[in-house]
């Protein structure tokens, strides 16, 4: 990305002009949520101003318009992920709801006592707890893939965990703490050799690296809109048609039915079978707008630029004495987790905040991972397409000041 492109991008995100405690905001908490470009914000207002009517049922003009926009958004998401069919995209509230949907519906259809689900130690709680709940409900076992010292999955152990009882592998595409980009294609091909489907948690991936669900051959791929410059409360589940058709609905209600009587209710076809209640058509259309924005810039360009930021930040962090980077995988996304000496992450985060720099501290909703590393948490800087090397310079200077104060 050229300097000029970067300047343009920054002007398109109104929140970047904010000041906090009279300091220019430096937002390095993109792993938690990303900021929104003006086009996404405008699309939400425009939707309510010009396109608001409940979809799929109305005979009137506005309803038709909203329905078309929602369905166009579905097509856009399908193309963005490289799905074979638009019906393979289910809108959800986000990654968490999408995983819960599969944990429930897949569990109902295919899991019985004694079966096993495989996750990894680096999963976000959202890709652990729904499976634990399934395990409890159906008396299954949860198996966990460990990591090596660099924060990469141990694929040999992974292979040894798979057996005839394994029903599904659920794995993060990118770790929200370590930044590790997992070898998803390898994991999927290993699993598929034993006919085990794979769910990929793409929450930390979609905004940062190219995703193609058909190339990687994922059975399920899930992500959240708000982590890819879109609105909160909307996300998507991609599922291969052959799987989704075999799964029972997750929630019952409007939209997901074909016919209802007190004797017998039949369910709608894909994708509507999984979209009970009024869909968030304002959210879906704004999400599509965010994806268009990404496509305009090119995800490869964004990935290359963020990789530069990652390398620069990693290099500059090494200037600080006793700094310890948590997660040194060869394939890494723009996330830097670190610790400095014995200083508590909370202290660093609080002081950086007062200097206008937003980072995340703590266990990042991945307690099992943090426990396995025998630490109490980390400070995490996670970058987005609008961050700059100049911001990293300010961040490093602030960090040096903070360390002096706390030492």
């Amino acid at each position, binding site marked *: 990305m050229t300097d000029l492109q970067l300047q343009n991008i920054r002007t398109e995100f109104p929140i970047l002009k904010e000041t906090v*405690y009279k300091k220019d905001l430096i937002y390095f908490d993109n792993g938690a949520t990303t900021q929104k470009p003006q086009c996404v914000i405008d699309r939400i207002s425009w939707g309510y101003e010009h396109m608001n009517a409940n979809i799929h049922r109305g005979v009137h003009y506005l309803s038709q318009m909203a329905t078309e926009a929602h369905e166009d958004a579905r097509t856009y998401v399908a193309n963005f992920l490289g799905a074979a069919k638009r019906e393979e995209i289910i809108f959800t509230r986000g990654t968490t709801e999408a995983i819960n949907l599969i944990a429930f519906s897949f569990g109902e259809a295919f899991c019985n006592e004694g079966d096993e689900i495989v996750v990894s130690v680096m999963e976000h709680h959202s890709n652990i707890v729904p499976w634990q709940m399934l395990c409890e409900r159906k008396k299954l076992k949860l198996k966990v893939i460990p990591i090596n010292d660099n924060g990469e999955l141990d694929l040999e152990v992974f292979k040894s965990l798979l057996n005839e009882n394994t029903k599904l592998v659920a794995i993060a595409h990118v770790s929200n703490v370590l930044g590790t980009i997992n070898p998803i294609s390898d994991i999927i091909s290993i699993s598929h050799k034993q006919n085990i489907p794979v769910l990929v948690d793409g929450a930390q991936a979609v905004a940062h690296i190219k995703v193609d669900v058909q190339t990687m051959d994922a059975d399920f791929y899930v992500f959240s809109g708000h982590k890819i410059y879109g609105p909160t409360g909307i996300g998507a589940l991609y599922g291969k048609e052959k799987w989704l058709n075999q799964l029972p609905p997750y929630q019952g209600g409007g939209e997901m039915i074909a016919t209802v009587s007190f004797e017998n209710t039949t369910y709608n076809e894909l994708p509507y079978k999984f979209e009970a209640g009024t869909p968030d058509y304002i959210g879906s259309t704004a999400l599509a707008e965010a994806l268009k924005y990404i496509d305009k810039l090119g995800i490869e360009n964004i990935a290359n630029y963020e990789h530069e930021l990652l390398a620069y930040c990693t290099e500059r962090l090494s200037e600080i004495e006793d700094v310890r980077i948590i997660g040194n995988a060869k394939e890494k996304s723009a996330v830097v987790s670190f610790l400095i000496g014995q*200083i*508590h*992450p*909370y*202290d660093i985060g*609080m*002081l950086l905040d*007062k*200097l206008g720099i937003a980072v995340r*501290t*703590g*266990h990042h909703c991945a307690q099992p991972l943090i426990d396995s590393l025998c630490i*109490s*948490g980390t400070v995490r800087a996670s970058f987005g397409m609008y961050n700059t090397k100049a911001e990293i310079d300010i961040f490093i200077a602030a960090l040096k*000041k903070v360390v002096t*104060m*706390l030492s």
Partner: protein
Amino acid sequence: MTINDLQDEIIEEFSMFDDWMDKYALLIDLGNTLEPLDTQYKAPQNIIEGCQSRVWLHAELIDGNVVYYGESDAVLVKGIVSLLIKVLSNHTPDEIINTDLFFIEQIGLREHLSPTRSNGLLAMVKQMKMFALAYKAKA
């Protein structure tokens, strides 16, 4: 001194600083000089678990007054723990139960006590009052 006198004293001390970093430097200083909690009290039953940092709290009743001891793994939190102990320690259970901790808001540290901050401090204030209530019930 009454609890309110002590609160006023802290407010005055913090009012000398306009800059956030100076206020935090004072808090760090308070944290670093807080007497470490006796290891026997750094036990699981004394932990107040927060999402971000941990706080240990222990209380004793000495001559009718509650005396608090506490610690945290984060130094800023320890600084606030030190302030809470300074304000509440050595007062009767009744005085503690009925107190309004206005100094936290006034010195601009309210954010540390917001439920979303989850650093264990809000729970600590509750626990301090619980100790006082328990001693009152025993009396």
